[in-house]
């Protein structure tokens, strides 16, 4: 069974204080690892897809990296508007016909001014 564990569950940072969010996964053949951002009461917003170990992607203050067992979402010099819940999900190579994602519970990030 595919599993995704995110840590920490919650993180409070000062504006400008860089940090990293962790996503550990077990999957029977990884097709892709996805990062989403979710604001309260809204649907998840796509950020990144990573497909193979060693791959990195960046968008503004966010950088996602992937190893064979985990992914990190690095946040550099965050601003209050980066406050949200960040979700990690995996898609298995052999999905049995379903491309459904297995999600972690998320990391609730608060950036204080």
């Amino acid at each position, binding site marked *: 069974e595919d599993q*995704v564990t995110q840590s920490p569950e919650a993180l409070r940072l000062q504006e400008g204080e860089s940090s990293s969010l962790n996503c550990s996964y077990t999957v029977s053949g990884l*097709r892709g690892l*996805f990062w*989403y951002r979710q604001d309260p*009461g*809204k*649907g*998840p*917003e*796509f950020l990144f*897809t990573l497909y193979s170990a060693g791959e990195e992607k960046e968008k503004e203050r966010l950088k996602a990296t992937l190893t064979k067992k985990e992914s990190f979402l690095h946040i550099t010099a965050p601003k209050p508007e980066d406050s949200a819940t960040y*979700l990690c*999900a995996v*898609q298995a190579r052999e999905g049995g*016909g*379903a*491309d*459904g*994602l*297995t*999600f*972690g*519970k*998320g990391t609730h990030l608060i950036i204080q001014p």
Partner: protein
Amino acid sequence: SQTIHQWPATLVQPVGSPLSLECTVEGTSNPNLYWYRQAAGRGLQLLFYSVGIGQISSEVPQNLSASRPQDRQFILSSKKLLLSDSGFYLCAWSRPRNIQYFGAGTRLSVL
């Protein structure tokens, strides 16, 4: 560009009442469609997916059902709601084996 619509945004229903949530996608054809549920303290859980009209697969046994009467329409239903059906319901679409894009969600409270 593609857009996905879900309604209603919020719903309060009594136990035992029926349910119908609708999702439509614009700007693409023959998308894969998904229903997820997000319960408090839990990750998003895949409930149903569909690769075409009338083709529905269920990932977990439950009190809910799904239908796809048209190419870009996906409906989540229940004949009799349970308290445990409360949660945040999300519809998503994707091209096969590609990124999933989510709607704004429906907050369902069963009382």
